Structure formats: C-alpha cells, structure tokens
C-alpha cells in the first residue's frame, strides 16, 4: 500500500473515532474501510485494521472475522485478544470460545523451520569438510525433520474454521430444511469448525465448540 492511501486511512479512521455523531462516524469509517479494501495487503496489521473499522461500524461478526485472521498471524498480540474479547461481548458470545492454543503463528513456525534447516545445513557442511560433528549433525537432522513434519501435520490436520456472519439455523440434513438441530438459530459471530460440505456446495457441515454437528448455508459463513 502506498503512503498516501495509508495516511488517508489513518486520518479518516481518527476522524471517525473522534466524530461527534453516529452519522459522521459511519461516513468516515466507511470511507476508511473502502480505502483499505481497495488497497489490500498481506499481514496481520491489515486484518486488524479491517477488524477495527468493522467494529466501529458495529458490524461485529465481520470485525470478529478479521480479528481472528489477525490473531492467526500474531497469536501473542494482546491487543488483538482484547479486541476479540470486546467484540465477543458485543455479540454476547462467551470469549473463551475464541481462544486459540498455538503459541506461534503459521508464518513463525515456518520461520523456525527455516532456521533449523539452515543450522542443520551448516552442521552437515562442517561434518563434510572436517569429518567431525557427525553426531550433532544427526541430532539436528532428526530434530529438524521432526519439526517440519509436525508443522505439516498440524497444518493438514487442523480443521478450517469459519465465523457465522448472520444468524442461521443449524440443519440436520440439507435435504430437509425443517429438521433443525435447535429450535433457535445460531447467533451471528459463532465460531464453527468445518468438517464437510453438501454435494452442491450450498451447505457446509460444521461442528460447534460443544461438539454438535449440523449444516449451515455457505453464504452465511466467513471462512478463516
């Protein structure tokens, strides 16, 4: 993103925060949001700023979605966790349902893997040229292989998650829309794990944090 749009975004955002009326806040934040969306970036900060913008527009499911994306990139960032907590309060959903166990983000894990690969390479090179450090080279090789495999398995086995953007009924079977799992719909902002989908792709099979399985319309889900 060039400086200009970035600076414009900050200015508009600050104007929105300081706005004396709701109308003015919505106007400024909407313009700021448009600038962000027109100049996409990769990174947790971009998602975090999107989350803040949606939060101020009171679009809490969308804010939560972007905060969770930012948290995936910066899992130790306390500001993001605080914002998730605030958003969960607005959505009246328990905060702990959003807690994420991994300490490192996926990018950080890959960086660690790169460093270990580099060290292993160096040790092996020393062994080749000097004939020494054979044991150390084997240890590093084993350890690095384990770490890389663990990262790959974690990535492969970790289910996709999604945030419910709108309230939706949890259906037992897409063929019968009257068969609901619960009488009440799932509230917007509910975090769900994806475990499958219907053949036409219009319904996504999800599991709630409490283990209950059902189908929700794919159009109402924001995939993380």
């Amino acid at each position, binding site marked *: 993103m060039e400086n200009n749009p970035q600076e414009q975004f900050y200015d508009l955002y600050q104007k929105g925060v300081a706005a004396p009326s709701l109308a003015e806040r919505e106007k400024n934040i909407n313009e700021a949001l448009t600038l962000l969306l027109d100049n996409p970036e990769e990174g947790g900060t971009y998602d975090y700023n999107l989350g803040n913008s949606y939060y101020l527009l009171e679009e809490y499911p969308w804010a939560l979605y972007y905060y969770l994306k930012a948290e995936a990139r910066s899992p130790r960032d306390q500001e993001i966790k605080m914002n998730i907590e*605030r958003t969960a309060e607005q959505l009246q959903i328990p905060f702990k349902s959003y807690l994420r166990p991994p300490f490192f983000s996926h990018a950080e894990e890959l960086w660690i893997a*790169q460093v270990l690969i580099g060290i292993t390479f160096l040790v092996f090179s020393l062994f080749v040229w000097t004939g020494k450090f054979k044991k150390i080279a084997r240890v590093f090789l084993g350890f690095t292989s384990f770490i890389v495999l663990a990262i790959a398995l974690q990535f492969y086995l970790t289910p996709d998650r999604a945030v419910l953007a709108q309230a939706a009924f949890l259906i037992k079977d897409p063929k019968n829309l009257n068969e609901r799992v619960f009488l009440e719909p799932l509230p917007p902002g509910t975090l769900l794990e994806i475990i499958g989908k219907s053949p036409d792709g219009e319904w996504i099979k999800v599991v709630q944090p409490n283990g209950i399985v059902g189908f929700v319309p794919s159009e109402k889900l924001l995939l993380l």
Partner: protein
Amino acid sequence: MVKRGFVRLMILWVLFPIFLAAQGGQTVRVFADPDSNLLENLPIRGTISVEHPNTAPIDKTSFLIKNVPLKTEQIKEVRYSPKDPLTLTIFRFELPARGKGLYPLDEISVKVGGKVYKSAAASFEVKGRGGALKSNPIGVSPSKKKPMLILEAFIEPLKTLYPGQKTKVGYRYYYNQSIDATKEVLPLLEAEGLKKVGGKVVRFAQEGDMSLLEVAQVVQAIKPGVYVFPPSYFEGYVIDRNGEHLPPAIESETPKMRIEVIPLPEETKPASYKNGIGSYTFATKLETTPHVEVGEKMVLRASFTGAPLEDLELPDLCCQPGMAGRFHFGDIPPAPVLEGDTLHYSIEIRPIDPQVKEIPSLEFSYFDPEKREYKKIQAKAIPITVKPIVVEEETKDVAEVWPRMDVKPLPVTIGPVKKMKPSAAPIQFFESWWGLLTIPIAAILVLLQVKLKSVLEVRREQKNQKTSLKLLESLSTCPPAELPARIKECFLLKLLEMGEIPLLYPYEELTNDGTKGVVKKFLSQVDAWNYAQGEQSRQAMLLKAEVTYQELTDGK
C-alpha cells in the same frame, strides 16, 4: 215395556258391528323400508307400503320427506282378499347417494283419502361398495335371466386435446344381475400422463332390463403427446342371496383407448396469449371515475364470455402497449368471479404519468381448436383524465428523518489501528510453504559439497603421486648421493606403470628377459657407475637413463 227394550238392544247389536267394521276399514298405515345391502355412492332405494281402505285413494304426488317432495313409483297394489276392504299399495322411492355409514330415514308422509299419514322414522346402513354391482331391475325376477355384464370405456367429448383442455374418461357397466367384482383393470381412471380434475363421479341408472353404473373422471391435458391406455378388463361372479359366488365367471373387456394431445402452434402465438382454448368474447369497462389524480386508484373490469371459462386466466395487461410505464398495477393479482356465463376480473390500476389520456385498447387472445388458429380480440380504449399532483420539496433535516444518525456514537473501547509495514518478497517467501524448498536445496548443497570434497582429494592425490617421468625429470637436479637410488626408483616405477611388475621390489630379482632384462642390465650399470663416480660418469649415466627410458616408453 219389555218388548220395546229388546228391540232397542237388537238394533244396537246390528249396528255396532257395522260401526266397528266401518272404523276398522278406515285405518291407514304407512311403512317405509330402505333396501338392504345399500352401497356407497349409489342412490338410496327402498319401498313405501301404504295399507288403506279401498275407498280412500292415495295421492301419489303427495309423498314428502322432510317437507321435500319425494318422487315415487307404484309397483304393486294388492288386496288381501276380494271381500277385504283394505288394499296394500307398494311404491318405490329413491334418495340421493351417500357415503358409507349409518343414517336415519326421516318420516315419509302421504295423503290418503285427503288426510296426511306418516311412516315411522327408521334407520339404514350404507356399506362400502367393495366391487359389488347390485342389480335391482324393476319388475324382473333376477333368477330367470342369464347373467350378463358389458363393460364399456369412453372418452367424451374430446379425444384430441390441446394442453389445458379437459375431457371426461370413464367406464359404463351394463349388467342385469348383482355381480361381485373379483378383478378390475381400469387404466382410464388412472389417466397416466394427464391431470385429474376433481374426483370420480358415479351415476346409476336403469335402462330397461339392464342396470347401468357409470364411473367418470374429468382429466386435463398437460403435455403434448399420444397417450395410449391398454385394454380394460372386468371379472366377477353373480352373488346369490347368501352372498356366495355362482360360477361361471362373468368377464368383459374393452379395447385400448387413445388420447392425443396436440401442442399449440408456437410460431403464431400472440404475446397476449395466456391459456384460453375455445371461443370467447372480451370487453373492458372502467368501474370507477375516469377523472383521477396521479397515483389514484382505478378499477378496470375485464369480462370474458364463451367456453370454457373455468381456469381462464387474465392476460398480462401490465406489459401491453400503452400500459407499461404509465400505469401501476396492484400487488395482489385479481381473483376471477363467475357471474352466470361471464367471467370477470377486477383489476386495480393507478396512473403514474399525468400525460396519460386513456386506458389503451387491451388485447386478449385465445386459441380456436376448431379452426386451429389463434384469435385476437381488442377491447375498446377508455378515455381518462389524469391530474398531476404537486410534490412538496423535502425540507426535512437528515437528522430529523433519521433521528438515530444524530445520536452520539459509542465510546471506542478497542485498541487503536496500527501502522502497516510492507513485507519484502524474500521474507514472504520464507513465511510460505514455498520456503520449505530450502530443504531439498540444502540437501543438494550438502551432496555437492561431498562431491566437491572427493574431487579435491583425488586431485590432491594425483598431485602428490610420484611418477616415473617426474622422477626422471628430477634426476638432473638430484643430489649425486641420491642419484643412483632415484634412478632405480624411476625405472622400477616405470616397469610398474608398464605393468611389467606387480609391485616394486629390488631390481636384482628382475628376470633377464625382455623389458625387465633391459632395466636390470641398466640398473646394474648404475651400480657400477655408483662405484666409479665422477662428473663425466654422472652425465653419461643421466644421458643413458634418458635414452633407456625413452626406449622403454617407445616400446623398443
């Protein structure tokens, strides 16, 4: 005195029986008896028996049930005896068909001799049909007739239809005895491929000796095609008084039947055509005032006459020339109203253009199946006047219209936004799965290093390795004390290089023949020189060594 009393008593004795007889002869009794074995969907039949004096005639048109005239038919009149003053007259009556169940039979009244007499209330049971055809031919004893049943299939009035048209299909059973059906195959009533309209209609009639049961179903054509219905079949048995089947079986079969549904011609179909197939007239009429303001409601009545009117749909008037963009139609589509032989639709419209001067001539089209062509009818245009309305300018404040927007916003409780730092491409590379390409790259680099190392070692060995030629070249600079030993080493190495000897050993052990013999001889001379010493000997020895070496190399 006694004589007078006796006479009076005698008169009483004579008159009293006459009086009694007269009273007894004037008793009228009415009995109403529904038939037994009444079946559902068939008329309720029974008999009315009237016992009356001969002198009291029955008014045959006076039969009433629940004050409603009841049609009867006299079937018998019986005198108990020639001298009996009473007569029994029997009538047959018929009431409308009912479904299965138990019903009361209301009192039936009749005028006899000018006075009204009533039967007692009774009840009757209607049973499920169960395939039994009950024959009750009037005046004919069933046991005397040969049992007969004719099954007839019919498609009336149309056998060739257009989609949307209706016709009636069904069967007629002609029979002369009560027959219990054991097998019926009636594909016409299933009407596969056609749409059934309403339920089956059952009709019972008597045609001479034969009873008639008609079962009909109205069907509507949907898709073009030829619909062939296989032959129909009936099998049954005559049932006796005990309900037992009497062989032989009574069978009847009908040939296959065919209905053809022809598609409507598409090329000539007018845009205003909806679904009318038949012959119609069409007219429109304004039911409200023709002088309105923009947006004011008007009711336009569209009227259709002709046949068939049921299911006739209103054409899409909103899209017709002169209507689109000038009139707004109500959200709820108008419902059809059938008044006599005219079908009406009352349509709500609102003019939205003050320039509109009339409701245009609306078009209705239908398909004439006899001429096999579409016909169009144009209704007359209806002049109207539309006044424009003055729109007041919106002067309200946005804040007033949307009062919520003027509200103070909620305090911000989330953290501030962050400055974004652009991420370099190489960093992004390592943060992605592509970065794991460093694994094979590192492995390749390690293998390359291994290869490099082995190459270098070989080269080093090669570099350090002594050869006979190198030794020969070093002879000229070799110290004199080392010269003999070096010459020996050179030539023995040469033999080794030539493959003459497998390993290095003292020249004294060489054989005397061939190349080995030459070398042995020369090296002996070197030893001799070693003892002689002197520079001249040294130079000669060096020269000799070069020559001998060259000879060995040349293979001489």
